């Protein structure tokens, strides 16, 4: 998936996660800024999940700013997928 523009998905509500996606130069790698209210308990799990999702979309270079308020794993994946698709302008079926 090719990222073309900045995009975001989610919200800063309890049990949700706000994800901002920013395209970066090729070779810059995955720059992930993760904040979570459950960092101590689930920080490692969250990172592992996000990397797995990025693998699924074949994204190697991206900046992600993630602010998690205790979202469950399916919520995190759904928000990330939407944010990435919006950034790739493949947002059909999702709101702009």
């Amino acid at each position, binding site marked *: 998936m090719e990222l073309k523009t900045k995009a975001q998905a989610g919200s800063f509500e309890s*049990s949700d996660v706000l994800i901002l996606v920013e395209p970066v130069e090729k070779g810059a790698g995955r720059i992930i800024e993760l904040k979570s209210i459950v960092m101590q308990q*689930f920080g490692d799990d969250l990172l592992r999940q996000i990397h797995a999702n990025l693998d699924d979309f074949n994204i190697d270079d991206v900046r992600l700013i993630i602010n998690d308020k205790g979202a469950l794993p399916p919520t995190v994946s759904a928000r990330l997928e939407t944010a990435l698709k919006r950034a790739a302008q493949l947002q059909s079926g999702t709101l702009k």
Partner: protein
Amino acid sequence: MKNILQREIPEELEGIGKLEAFEGAFSKLKKGWMEEKTVPPPNKAKMPHSSKICDTLRDAILKTKPRNGMTVSFHHHLRGGDNLVYEAIKILADLGIKDITLAASSLTTAHDPILPYFKDGTITQVYASGIRGELGKAIAEGVLPKPFVIHSHGGRVRSVHTGKIKIDLAILAASAADEEGNATGAHGPSAFGSMGYAAIDSWYAKQVIVVTDNIVDYPCVPQSITQNYIDYVVKVDSIGDPSKIAGGTTRITKAPMDLQIARLAAQVIEHSGELKEGFSFQVGAGGASLAVAKYIRKIMKQRSIKGSFILGGVTSYGVDMLNEGLFRSIFDVQSFDAAVSSSLLDNQYHIEIPAGLYANPFNCGCMTNKLDIVVLGALEIDTNFNVNVITGSEGYVRGASGGHSDTASGANLTVVVCPSFRGRIPIVKKKVHTIVTPGESIDVLVTERGICVNPQKPELKAHLEAAGIKVKDIAVLAEEVEGITGKAKPIETTERVVGIVEYRDGTVIDVIHQVKE
């Protein structure tokens, strides 16, 4: 040493002394007496017609000759509006007093401003039934040199009787008082209701100051606190924020999940066999547990059941049920909202009770022993039904033992209501961080994802299943929850024990380790 719940307890702790391990809810009580010696209350004398009035709180505190290492006590009946604890500690700190043991019946976020005095050596130890906010975080991180003690409301009375808590100075806020120190919380601009937790302090403290924003003509009626225990009386402009002390009624939650849990809990209670003519009832003031009252009220009306008494922390919702004739009486140790005070003042069947009568295990029968049904909350519950109501998901102290273990041990039916997970944090799990109430006292857990009956209560399970209520194994529920949230990494702590959790009989049910920063 290990206690009966397999928690590691040190034999001895500097600042507390020798510890005794918890051996079961009734292991000490079944003897019929308490082995620890009780200490006598102080005997004092006053000349006739001498004045107790002091111009300022500082003057009164100076008259008590404060000293390093003293124990100062407070009640928490001012709830979130309390400013007296801060004012008093500030005066003591300005006088250069160090090494104070703070024995408050509970500490809330209203007490956050005293945090600097935890750091500078003014306060070095805390006894309380609950600690929250900034204070709860700081003590879990080990800010105090001596271990803090979490006790239950009943256990606090026992600790004063045995001299574990030796109160040198009690500073008691009242919303009305006369010049001799007869005092109440039932009326006045800052009316807050019952003074139940303060009674023991007035009886046992070496010196007692009553602080009020409202001096009334002698005599102050009702005499929640009586003059024969009071050394000094101070009129101040303000005991705190009246909008938070005397404001508002407690509303039933509108959160759909809490309401669903409450609805299920009411069904469980209805078919438990305990909801019968003349039953007694207590609910917590928290989200789902108070909401249970709403559904029980409906069922009582439908089935024309009249209860005997409502106990405990009392909300205006309980008062409504009294006024509707659904219960004959209310025994009120603590009023959760100010709308309760007028009922306490006007209705002779709304009765103020001291904490000892409420829940002290060592007397000829506290009122929690006569409870039929209690509904309680939980921060965490394990697969043996042990409940944590004191430490949060990060290991900080952010709750209160309160009357949890007192009522759970006394009631015929103890119902715990809580969501199975909050946000991403599992609530029903294999092991809780801190045990406050032992699983043997819990009969049934009600969550949005299933109802679990303690295997010690097969009859209850049979009653519920006969009524068509599905019952789930708690271990299955815990696994289901872990499947949804993922497996949480345990809280990282050091070896240092920063606090202990006393069971109501004075044994240690758990310890709290320092949280790694």
